[in-house]
């Protein structure tokens, strides 16, 4: 009788033990399905398009769960915090990597699954997915730790520059950008579009200008430098010089507005992300300027350099995923040369040099050459600190206030610098 009474308990314990074993990271068994958390929009369109090919090839179903940008970040933060095995793969914007790297939320793809660098892909693309960062300042919490690849780029975004090549030559410097803006500004046509919406948008627009002017948010020891002379000059250039040629309402303009203004023939030039090009500016169904816009790497500033900004989207494997090996195999397949050809055909943004420099593909994708040059020139990444989201919020709010004329550039950088210093000190920097 006793045996019979204990039998259900034994079964339950066996099931729990079995479940726990299946949930251990790095599982090598072939799963029936891999679940990917992805960002909704042009960034995951090609991923969705090629995923069924993987199922045909391996029998592993790829389920893609999409979220809008901010919701994806929230979802990943809470999922990682709970150590939940909900997702086998996650899409991440590269500024999120320091947070997830510091929190050790992701599995090492090199040492655990043998993913190696490919010489056809620029080193900077692997570097952005490596934690701790292989160059530049390292956050205190990550110092002394071994560097590992924790994310592999699947969207090779680099911020570039676009201008109406049917109306004028390519600007080589930001001074020429300003001169062209003033020269071409007329009724219902703006010389430059500032992407000035508060927080992330204005910071993304500003950082390439800041770097090209020789400024930065931090120095190599995490000391705040956003209020030094070079940085202040860059702020004034954006919120005064460029704004003078920009449409009213720059304070609320985001990427989609900027591209629409270009597409409807109301703007001469601006910075641009590759996704905006294929989705709006070069999309014949919505654009009046298809073929009239050219794309170049960031113009040079007083520092003599033009520095683009990375905005790569990476795939990583959460620590809690029980299907690490299969997930890593999917990454290898997706970034392989063969798959990337199909991926690009479906609108994907590659990082492979051989694809970006392919003349036939350049005909179809007029920004590929500029993207190849931008990657070759080694673009900057946003400072690799787990505090970046807060820093960006502080900087983006104060820059936006200066752009709106609510404060002077001097006061804006001072306020931003003070707040960032307090934040970083509190975080142990």
């Amino acid at each position, binding site marked *: 009788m006793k045996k019979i009474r204990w039998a259900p308990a034994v079964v339950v314990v066996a099931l729990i033990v079995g479940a726990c074993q299946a949930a251990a990271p790095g599982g090598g068994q072939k799963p029936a399905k891999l679940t990917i958390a992805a960002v909704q929009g042009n960034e995951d369109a090609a991923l969705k398009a090629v995923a069924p090919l993987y199922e045909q090839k391996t029998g592993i179903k790829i389920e893609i769960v999409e979220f809008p940008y901010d919701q994806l970040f929230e979802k990943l933060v809470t999922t990682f915090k709970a150590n939940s095995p909900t997702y086998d793969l996650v899409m991440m914007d590269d500024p999120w990597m320091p947070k997830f790297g510091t929190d050790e939320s992701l599995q090492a793809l090199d040492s655990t699954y043998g993913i190696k660098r490919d010489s056809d892909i620029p080193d900077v693309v692997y570097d952005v997915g490596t934690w701790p960062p292989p160059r530049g300042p390292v956050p205190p919490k990550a110092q002394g730790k071994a560097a590992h690849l924790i994310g592999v780029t699947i969207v090779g975004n680099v911020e570039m520059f676009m201008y109406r090549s049917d109306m004028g030559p390519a600007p080589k410097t930001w001074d020429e950008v300003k001169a062209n803006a003033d020269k071409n500004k007329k009724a219902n046509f703006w010389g430059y579009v500032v992407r000035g919406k508060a927080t992330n948008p204005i910071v993304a627009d500003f950082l390439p200008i800041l770097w090209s002017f020789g400024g930065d948010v931090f120095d190599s020891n995490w000391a705040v430098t956003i209020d030094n002379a070079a940085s202040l000059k860059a702020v004034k250039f954006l919120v005064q010089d460029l704004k003078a040629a920009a449409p*009213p309402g720059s304070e*609320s303009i985001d990427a989609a507005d900027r591209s629409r203004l270009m597409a409807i023939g109301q703007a001469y030039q601006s910075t641009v992300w590759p996704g905006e090009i294929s989705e709006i500016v070069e999309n014949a169904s919505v654009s009046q300027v298809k073929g009239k816009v050219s794309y170049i790497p960031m113009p040079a500033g007083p520092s003599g350099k033009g520095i683009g900004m990375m905005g790569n989207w990476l795939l990583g494997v959460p620590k809690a995923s029980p299907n690490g090996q299969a997930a890593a195999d999917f990454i290898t397949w997706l970034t392989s040369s063969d798959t990337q050809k199909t991926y690009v055909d479906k609108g994907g943004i590659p990082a492979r040099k051989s694809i970006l420099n392919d003349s036939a593909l350049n005909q179809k994708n007029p920004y590929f050459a500029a993207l190849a040059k931008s990657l070759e020139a080694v673009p900057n990444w946003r400072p690799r600190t787990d505090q970046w989201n807060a820093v960006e919020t502080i900087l983006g*709010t104060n820059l936006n206030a200066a752009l709106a004329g609510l404060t002077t550039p001097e006061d804006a950088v001072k306020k931003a610098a003070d707040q960032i210093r307090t934040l970083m000190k509190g975080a142990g920097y």
Partner: protein
Amino acid sequence: MANVTARPAPVPRAGAGRFTRQERLAYLMLAPVLGTILVIVTYPFLLAVLQSLQDAGSEFVGLRNYAAALENPLLYEALAATGIYAALVMPTEILLGLGFALLVHRIVRSPRIRALLFVLATIPLVLPPIAVGVIARLIYAPGYGVLNHLLIVTGVIRDEINWLGQPATAMPAVASVDIWQWTPFVYLVLFSGLLTVPREEIEAAQVDGASGWSQFWHIEFNYLRPLLLLILFFRLADVLRVFDHVFILTGGGPGNTTQLLSLYLYRIEFKYFDGGQAAALAVMVLAAVSIAYSLVTRLLPVERR
């Protein structure tokens, strides 16, 4: 003959101090609901209280998170912005909703037109907030916004108005979206309330020569009073949760002008990753709202006069 009031027979108890059979049945039937509330409301709230007393490493820090939250000057900017937003949207929605309800109740007699208005009023309520934000962006966007285009074409203005980029217009623009979406809710609730007013009372007042205002103030308003309180509660809760369309339209800008409490809380949690401070804020907001609700309930008589 003396009145004899029959007292209900006592319900048999199984034992002293124990529930009656009816009580047990009642609690049994309530158990699923109470259990659900416990899981989805009480448990997260208790977790939030716990988190508000801990630091990032789950160490107990007493009231330090509450102090940090109250010391942050951005909190007061967010509270001020939320106050301005509430002051713009709540009276406007209530007055407009009440006006529409009275107008339709008194003028529109056709059941078909009333049904059509009901359907039209429901549409904004069922739209996802993100979709509402995107539509609003097409209206107010700089450069290609529909509103500026219409105003220029009709000769009302010559140059574009920077709706979202200056404090004087950004908050009203953001508030207008709320007013568009939620005035129909007020209309629907109050119109339903007007339908409950006995026809005889109105007819008697009309025979006595009461004006339209008198009819409203002395009769209809009494029937609407509890509903207005309900609307006030719902809308206040909604104002504290407003997020999507503000995020899409201005991102809280220019500067911090439209950074409402919900957006501020979101940033403390997901940009500053200060879960303790965010939890402390959430607990304080909940406490403040509970106090406000109990005060409003006591100060405003709910029952009809």
